């Protein structure tokens, strides 16, 4: 009763085995070829590493460096990739960049148009590493193309930010309002001061993720000239943006007048109390001590912990904590004081 079905099934089985076998054959061939190419690239690398390095130290053309085939280009790329990580001097770096520009520009121009996503991504990373400005318009073209993925857009915009691209800010504002905080931060982390100033100026018009990213960038920059701006954000905003601004101020460690922030110790939002404690810890103004001691008795563990940590930073911090430990009636505050008295020594 099964004769026909069994025949079909055995044909299917043989068919599947054949298909798997063909795929295997393809993968095996690919592996053999690629292993061979890898060996070849390694040979090139061995041969090229010395002339390449001497060019970087003192730029004089050498005939052996001219890349006449794809594998040689890849060898040069890998070598430069290694050097760019370890080189320190500006002169040497400049030589390396000009070398990359000379030999890799055409190769990358084509690679940016590749159908292979990972190839385009890798190329963008390399353009960033080697700072090939000649490719700026190609990168722009890639970002604006319809089939480009989100990852490529972020990476491409970051490369443009790095090149201090004129209209970057407008582009972000008009077209890319949907990125996450992390993505904005990633784009702007290496942006120039000019772009950062633009961000600050139009902060109020920006969308919330960009605002958060901006505040984080300012914390990262750690420059006093932005303090008045951050303080104004802190006073005119509420909720998460305000918390971020406080965090940024705590990271920079300076405010014009600490007394403006003391009322935060009595805020009804525990996160704000915690941030106030953090801020007081970095500024270490005597005025803040009473506030910190009251926060050490806060109902929230995080606030207590931060308050104790901040008190500990004061010059006579240990003494104050010991005092709390001996005199307080709140078992939670005593516990926390005890922990920080014993910490770090």
């Amino acid at each position: 009763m099964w004769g026909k079905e069994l025949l079909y099934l055995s044909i299917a089985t043989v068919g599947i085995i054949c298909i798997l076998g063909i795929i295997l054959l393809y993968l095996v061939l690919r592996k053999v070829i690629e292993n061979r190419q890898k060996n070849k690239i390694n040979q090139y690398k061995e041969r090229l590493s010395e002339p390449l390095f001497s060019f970087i130290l003192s730029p004089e053309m050498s005939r052996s460096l001219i890349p006449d085939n794809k594998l040689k280009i890849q060898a040069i790329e890998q070598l430069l990739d290694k050097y760019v990580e370890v080189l320190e001097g500006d002169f040497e770096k400049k030589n390396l960049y000009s070398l990359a520009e000379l030999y890799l520009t055409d190769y990358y121009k084509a690679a940016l148009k590749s159908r292979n996503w990972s190839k385009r991504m890798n190329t963008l990373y390399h353009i960033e590493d080697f700072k090939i400005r000649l490719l700026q318009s190609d990168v722009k073209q890639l970002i604006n193309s319809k089939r480009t993925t989100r990852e490529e857009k972020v990476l491409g915009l970051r490369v443009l930010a790095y090149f201090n691209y004129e209209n970057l800010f407008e582009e972000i504002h008009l077209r890319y309002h949907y990125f996450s905080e992390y993505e904005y931060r990633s784009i702007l982390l290496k942006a120039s001061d000019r772009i950062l100033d633009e961000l600050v100026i139009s902060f109020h018009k920006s969308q919330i993720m960009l605002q958060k990213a901006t505040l984080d960038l300012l914390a990262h920059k750690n420059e006093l000239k932005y303090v008045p701006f951050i303080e104004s954000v802190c006073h005119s905003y509420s909720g998460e943006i305000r918390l971020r601004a406080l965090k940024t101020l705590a990271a920079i460690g300076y405010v014009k007048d600490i007394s403006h922030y003391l009322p935060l110790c009595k805020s009804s939002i525990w996160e704000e109390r915690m941030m106030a404690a953090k801020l007081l810890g970095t500024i270490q103004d005597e005025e803040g001590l009473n506030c910190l001691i009251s926060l050490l008795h806060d109902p929230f563990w995080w606030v207590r912990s931060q308050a104790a940590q901040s008190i500990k930073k004061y010059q006579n911090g240990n003494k104050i904590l010991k005092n709390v430990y001996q005199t307080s009636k709140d078992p939670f505050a005593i516990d926390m004081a005890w922990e920080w008295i014993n910490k770090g020594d």
Partner: protein
Amino acid sequence: MLNTVLMGIMTTYGWFITIFMMIVIIFYSSILVISSLQLRREYQLNRKQTYDDYLNDYYSKPISIIVPAYNEEAGIIQSVRSLLSIHYPSYEIIVVNDGSKDETVAKMIEHYDMVEVHKVIRKQIKTKPIKKIYQSKFLPYLYLVDKDNGGKADALNVGLNFSNFPYFCSLDGDSVLEADAFLKVMKPIIDSNEQVIASGGSIRIANGCHIENGNILNVGLSKNPLVIMQIIEYLRAFLMGRVGLSRHNLLLIISGAFGVFSKHWVLQAGGYKTDTVGEDMELVVRIHRLLKERKLDKKIGYVPDPVCWTEVPESMTYLRRQRSRWHRGLFESLWTHRKLTFNPKYGSIGFISFPYFWIVEFLGPVVELSGFIYIILSLFFGGVYIEFAILIFFLSCLYGSFFSMAAVLLEEWSLRRYPKLDQILKLFVYSLTETLWYRPLTVFWRCEGIWQSIKGETSWGEMKRKGVSK
């Protein structure tokens, strides 16, 4: 009369097995397609650079690494050492000694110069009492918590209470991490702006690899056929199964060997459950459940990259214990949360994940085992049943061997962690033989697990470790 009834039963049952296997094969095939598309996209991406971004980002999320240790004096120093060399901007290591009877504590104290400290612990989950807390003098981010014995889940809960950071990772003592493991698994969390609240990666098998000081120097193949079969099995489970399931947020398992969780959500879910042998799966199911009940749009992520290399049993005895234990764990998680099955409130988890785990993962072995028995029986009955038996055999080849072969090819097509040609060929040939010997064995062991669950057995079945690192 009796004969006719028997024949009727045989025919009906033959049909049942056939249809069951067909459905599963269709399901697996679609998962295979989804996985291949996903894996292909990231083929040959220069990962090192991708992760560099995250490393440089001063704003990356700090992680608490919790290492539960019970009688691990042989390997604990090595495990901690491998953690000290990972690439991640900020983390702390919390070794939780679960009342070991050996020298685990003494060894840690001596080797890492640890001193007792006083620290306030937020007791957010109820656990067995803590005896003492130590901190290393020269590595301030290394802690040792000494507590009364209470099992692995209890030790993990203590680690959770103790930890200072918003994300945590639990790690088995016998695993070796890739240096970039945390960068890899944190990527989905950071990229998604914390919409992903837990994330795991592929687990690979360390037996046969050359490992020194907790670093993988050379990826090799063991000579032991049991280990090779397990390598294939892991490839299939991770590359095919999990990539496919995670694509649609259907993943119910993040391997206990390595996974990162958001502490907030784990605490919301109530921490690890202490009276089950499959606490890792149970936790993930509970988190899913919580998310659905609160109607939150959060996800559980998965990256196909290998992140963790673990030691697997090399002998039948231990493998058998492990497999029946896993199956009991699976049953306990499914049974505890049986309400989710076909419950419209739980959406795709209730209608796809749960039925899949019940029917394919849990009951599949029973059907398969009866398939093997059917084949043997049919030899005695002869006639039309032989044809049925051949049919079932073909299907179980598809079911077992062919998907394994495909998984091996998928590995070579996308991730390519095995550098040598003969390794791939060896894996391929071995996977061809799966239906003939390895599959029936594991199927039998898993059925044993079901039997043990019915009897209500709760033993853990210890595994003897050789130690993977030199």
